């Protein structure tokens, strides 16, 4: 499965599930880049059908509506949607 890694300051394990065509997802990537944090992301719309089904099930555990962006932090909490305040707060 194609998961990209953006290097930066380690603030915990950050996994961003995004869509390549989604403007809010791109804003979230830019925010994480500006914050300079280390994170991984997957553009779920660009995965194979098989990988997409797998990832959808994974996202559903955190966000039942499987909307994008979904950011899972330290396998323990998640931020749904482009939410700079909540992200800044969780990644202090």
């Amino acid at each position: 499965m194609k998961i990209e890694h953006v290097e930066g300051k380690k603030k915990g394990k950050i996994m961003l599930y995004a869509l390549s065509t989604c403007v809010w997802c791109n804003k979230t990537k830019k925010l994480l880049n500006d914050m300079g944090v280390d994170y991984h992301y997957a553009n779920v719309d660009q995965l194979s059908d098989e990988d997409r089904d797998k990832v959808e099930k994974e996202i559903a555990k955190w966000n039942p509506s499987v909307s994008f962006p979904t950011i899972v932090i330290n396998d323990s909490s998640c931020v749904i949607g482009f939410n700079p305040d909540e992200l800044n707060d969780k990644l202090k």
Partner: protein
Amino acid sequence: MNVNPEVIAEAVEVLYRTLNQEAESSGYHLNPDAGFTKDLVKGLLVNTGRYGYQSCPCRLSSGRKPEDLDIICPCDYRDPDLTEFNSCYCALYVSEKALRGEVRIQPIPERRPPPGKRIIPKADTAVSSFPSSKIPVWRCKVCGYLCAREEAPEVCPICKAKKDRFERF
């Protein structure tokens, strides 16, 4: 896909102008942030190339049209979202208040039911009845336009949604 960036920019510009004209002529408005809106329009073009239909750029398409009919732009959720939140889910379309800058355009919650709870409509199923009409009544699921005629129109005269977005009323 190797497409000349200038060709893409031109295609975005053409679709942006078309959508803007259609929106304004039927009482809808595109997001006044042209840069933001053109990024979404580009997403629509990418999805049309990928799936063969103009699926929402901010939602995950299944690639199977019957399952994605509700999220073909303009989606079934646009009008209720405009009423409640002043923009559609992507913020491609905004309310008049948002257009005038009276309310801020920001991300809104997802109204589409989660996977497993979505109802995939069968063509030709009536949702309720018009007791005295001998002529079938068709309802556009995008904007609510009703018309009484033998078949649904090819394109909704109000919101430009295609025929497959109509249901028998």
